[in-house]
């Protein structure tokens, strides 16, 4: 029925709006470059986020979407005058859709030398399992 279809479309639009992210802080939004690799037990994400202190990092995982947000404060003191500017301090943010089921309790995050290392262990049911084929 036409009305039903209409309703379905509306809920979807509403959800799309709800998931559209917007920065809460004013300032520039930066996309950190990442490496993502996977082994039998876990998915590991490495992200370059120079200038982000551990207290200013947020990692969020829900509905299969992983979002990392880190705020890098400008190092320049107010009485300094800019001579050359090639980068800007701001908020690093990136989201990924994870296809594997992740064991949320076991997520490990370390931030060292401006690089975030995030280890997302796979939940037991998502690990590859050998299936023996019996010949009769």
């Amino acid at each position: 029925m036409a009305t039903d279809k209409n309703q379905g479309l509306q809920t979807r639009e509403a959800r799309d709006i709800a998931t559209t992210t917007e920065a809460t802080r004013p300032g520039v939004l930066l996309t950190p470059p990442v490496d993502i690799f996977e082994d039998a037990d876990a998915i590991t994400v490495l992200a370059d986020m120079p200038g982000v202190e551990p207290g200013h990092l947020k990692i969020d995982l829900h509905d299969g979407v992983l979002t990392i947000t880190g705020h890098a404060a400008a190092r320049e003191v107010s009485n300094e005058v800019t001579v050359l500017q090639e980068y800007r301090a701001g908020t690093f943010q990136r989201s990924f859709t994870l296809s594997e089921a992740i064991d949320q309790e076991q997520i490990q995050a370390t931030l060292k030398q401006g690089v975030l290392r995030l280890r997302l262990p796979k939940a037991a049911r998502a690990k590859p399992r050998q299936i023996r084929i019996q010949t009769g």
Partner: protein
Amino acid sequence: MIVRHVSPWSPGWSAPTSNFAQMRRDMESLMERLTGVATDESAAGVFPPMNVSEDRDSYYVRALIPGIDAAQLNVSVVHQTIAVSGTRQSPEEEGASYHRKERAEGAFSRSVTLPASFDGGRVHAKYVDGILTLTLPKPEAAKPRRVTVQTS
């Protein structure tokens, strides 16, 4: 390997184009405030990106070099030029399959010429949170000095 010299200044005098550089920076920051998205510096292909600023006493050079051991960084000073070089290597994970590999790696080398001389013997370097900060003190003669005007 990326090598680039940046020397937008003529020594002694500030370049006549410096006003345009400032204007361009202002325009970019205005655009960013309107759109909320930064202009992509990686498009410039320069690694590491550097900011240079100054105050009364020193020049400050801040370079974004995430994920490197401080021992792997070489900083050298010749006249008005500072050079930063090193190698960034991510250890390849064994038995892992890569979904994405965007982080740059390999050897890099960059030099920046400052608009005026600095005291090369007192340069201070510090590496925190993936940012290399160099403090280059200005020589006494280059610091602004107050001159008293005498009345007869």
